[in-house]
């Protein structure tokens, strides 16, 4: 059997998660480097259309694992279903987007096969001399990167962080890839969790994803009352205030203003980070911004790694005059 890479895409109620395209792009990159064939799998209930949509990409084959029991996500059902597929087709490498759902079942899937998962990768490289596949992941809150290799027999499992590859770089196939139904057997009693419907907590929640300009605050804002400084700047710019997790954990801003892995993923025109150090959990939610302005008094803060404009200094000194200048500029314009 030829070596293959299996991309497990993610869908919710027949709608494909954007991160799936990124993972297909990742798969295509790895396929190009290794010469391995690329296949995809869609898991869920009534997923025929999604499978067809995925099959439009440059793939050797798409497996559709369609079963009622997979309709509402449970880690038990997903791990068992994918285990059966992996055992049947024996791919060399299985890759998935590093979403909350994948984080929930992928370690279980890999462990159930006695294999290892390299989670939350941001890049892939094949070492020319050793031929090793190197998966890059961040460590110590993004302060370091690590090149990681698998030390076991295949199949290998890896997940890729949102934004590591560009979804729009996923190549279309010359012709649609064949879609093959893969039947799984999930016995009664295998699925132990009983999930309920998704819901949102905050009513009239602000939709940060639609904001053109975001002024975001982190631990550096120090006190709740100082949020007014950021609000004034956001108001002057006609933008929204957002925050990193600790601010919302403190109850200083509602949870729906949180940007990062556990909050919103945003891609505004301008993202102004005030007193945000730039832990990965936050960065994954905003690195897609077209321009990032970071103001932080710690010159070593990781946020500066991804900033387009960097100001090393005290936000309490800089933001008030900045707000004034913005007001002046807008009044003049």
């Amino acid at each position, binding site marked *: 059997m030829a070596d293959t890479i299996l991309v497990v895409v993610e869908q919710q109620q027949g709608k494909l998660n954007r991160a799936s395209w990124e993972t297909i792009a990742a798969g295509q990159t790895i396929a190009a480097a290794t010469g391995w064939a690329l296949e995809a799998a869609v898991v869920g209930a009534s997923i025929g259309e999604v499978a067809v949509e995925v099959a439009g990409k440059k793939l050797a084959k798409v497996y559709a694992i369609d079963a009622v029991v997979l309709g509402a996500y449970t880690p038990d059902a997903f791990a068992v279903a994918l285990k059966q597929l992996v055992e049947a087709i024996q791919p060399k490498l299985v890759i998935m987007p590093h979403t909350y759902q994948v984080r929930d079942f992928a370690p279980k899937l890999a462990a159930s096969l006695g294999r290892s998962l390299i989670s939350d990768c941001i890049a892939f490289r094949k070492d020319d001399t050793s031929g090793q596949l190197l998966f890059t992941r961040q460590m110590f809150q993004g302060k370091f990167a690590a090149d990681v290799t698998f030390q076991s027999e295949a199949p290998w499992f890896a997940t890729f962080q949102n934004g590591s590859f560009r979804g729009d770089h996923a190549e279309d196939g010359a012709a649609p890839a064949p879609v093959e139904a893969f039947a799984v057997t999930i016995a009664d009693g295998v699925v132990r969790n009983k999930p309920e419907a998704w819901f949102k907590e905050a009513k009239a929640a602000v939709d940060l994803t639609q904001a053109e300009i975001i002024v975001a605050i982190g631990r550096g804002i120090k*006190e709740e009352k100082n949020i007014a400084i950021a609000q004034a700047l956001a108001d002057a710019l006609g933008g929204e205030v957002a925050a990193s997790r600790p601010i919302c954990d403190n109850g200083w801003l509602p949870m729906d203003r949180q940007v990062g892995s556990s909050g919103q993923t945003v891609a505004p025109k301008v993202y102004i980070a005030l007193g945000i150090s730039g832990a990965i959990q936050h960065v994954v939610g905003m690195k897609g911004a077209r321009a990032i302005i970071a103001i932080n*008094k*710690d010159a070593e803060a990781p946020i500066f790694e991804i900033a387009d404009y960097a100001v*090393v200094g005290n936000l309490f000194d800089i933001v008030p005059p900045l707000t004034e200048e913005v007001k002046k500029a807008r009044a003049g314009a």
Partner: protein
Amino acid sequence: MAAATTPSQKIAGGSFLLETRQPCEVFTPEDFNEQHQMILQTADEFAAQEILPNADKIEHKDFSVSRELIRKAAELGLSSVDIPEAYGGMEMDKVTSCIVADRVAVYAGFATSWGAHTGIGTLPLVFFGTEAQKQQYLPRIANGELTTAYALSESSSGSDAMNCRARAELSADGRHWILNGEKMWITNGGFADLFTVFAKVDGEQFSAFLVERSFPGFSTGAEEHKLGIRGSSTTPVILNDCKVPKENLLGEIGKGHVIAFNILNIGRYKLGAACVGGARIATKQAIEYAKQRKAFGKPISDFGLIREKLANMAIGIYAGESIVYRTVGMLDAALSNIDKSAPDAARQICKGIEEYAVECSILKVWGSEMIDYVADEMVQIFGGYGFVEEYPAERAYRDARINRIFEGTNEINRLIITGFLLKRAMSGQLPLLPAIKKLMDEVMAGPSFGDADESAFAAERSMVTAAKKLTLFAAGSASQKYMQAMPDQQELMGAIADMVIESYAMESCLLRAEKLAASKTDAAAKLPVAMTQVYLAEAMEKVESRARKVIAAVAEGDMMRTQMAILRRLGKHEPIDTIPLRQMIAQRVIEVGKYGV
């Protein structure tokens, strides 16, 4: 762990001048056990999450916030470290007590209130209260329900507290003490519930009383407008035929001074710890500012003169920690043998602490001058921003100043240091005179050429020995001339006190560095060793200059010249280049963003 690293036998107070100590004999912050570490962390978290966010409110005299914080601290047990378990307290060692005082000192306004409450406000009752008095008040103090204050000073008596005018007379029915008078500068005056008030029974016998705010005839005056520690309450206490139940006499009639002096000793070592804590946060803020403030295109933390300041500030903290924890380590060792259930346990504890009156005064003087220096340099590093209220330096600078004044002015404490040593020498309790004689003999015998000591720290050890010798030499010369009249020679007493203080600080730094070097990797010991070397070099200059001052004052002519020659020989040491050492220290503290040991 502490038991293994500190000597079990008691070290005599003041004996550091005469005896050579080994690193294993001193307690250092590196000897904190797991329990100390955890309490330190709780205190740190409390400071960061409860005190600092409330500092602005407290600074504007919202004392309900201070009270609430005192209650919260009590909930965690931070306020009752020195209260016996039997009365709802934590009853922990003095090292713990200092760790907490040190870490709570992030904001002086609150630290002052808290320190007065847990220290001078509560301890008189702990040490001198009757069983009934302790039952009545201590549990409610331990749980934060009651806050306390200490009312000793008056408008016309401060340092000479026993010269007070407040009076107490027994009521006609013999059931109450009737107190009259006015106390001044009473910390927590505005909100405390229970006051230890000093007054003279029948205008003669200096005594202490437990006075509740609610007692008839008790009132407090207006808040003082102070230079610093504005977040603390300071008011007069007015006693106008104040009716105090007879059983609220604290200790014995006419023995108020025993309470006053003992409590001050405790206040002093804790103040030393608080000064270290205050310096720690000031240094952190100065480093933060220096790293982000740019001049000529680079952060000012790159400049040598700023780095020198940052290094000195960190060295101040290092030396401060070294003397504070060495001293409380000795206190704990001395107190550990006391049977806490004995009826006179409290008195024994007081006696144990009094043994180290010199060391306690050293901590107070040295600590308060160190934090003053640190706050001053902090303002300087902040430049113009250091002079305006929006930045932390201005408040730190104002807040630091009081430390040289309260708990006995530094002048009084200098007199105590030299006076106490001389008194002990005269009574033979401390073999100071034989030591001075031995030194004089050694001097007369001329220089000796022993084998050069090439072991690690040999140069540093010889410098510490030299400092002690100079101190003994100066003290010997001065007391030979003035004999019993020495106490009147305040300038000489002060100069000798400076030498004693520096000898203690130098030795404490060195012993800690040696201990660190023996237990940690070279890399980890590098910083404290460098700090020690710089500190020794600076302190030695001070010791030499004071020695010259004393000799010039007590000798003349040929005698003076001979003594100066001796002084030069005793103090002989190779100068060291402190610039690269300070550079290295600064580099490290800038890197970690705080005092980095």
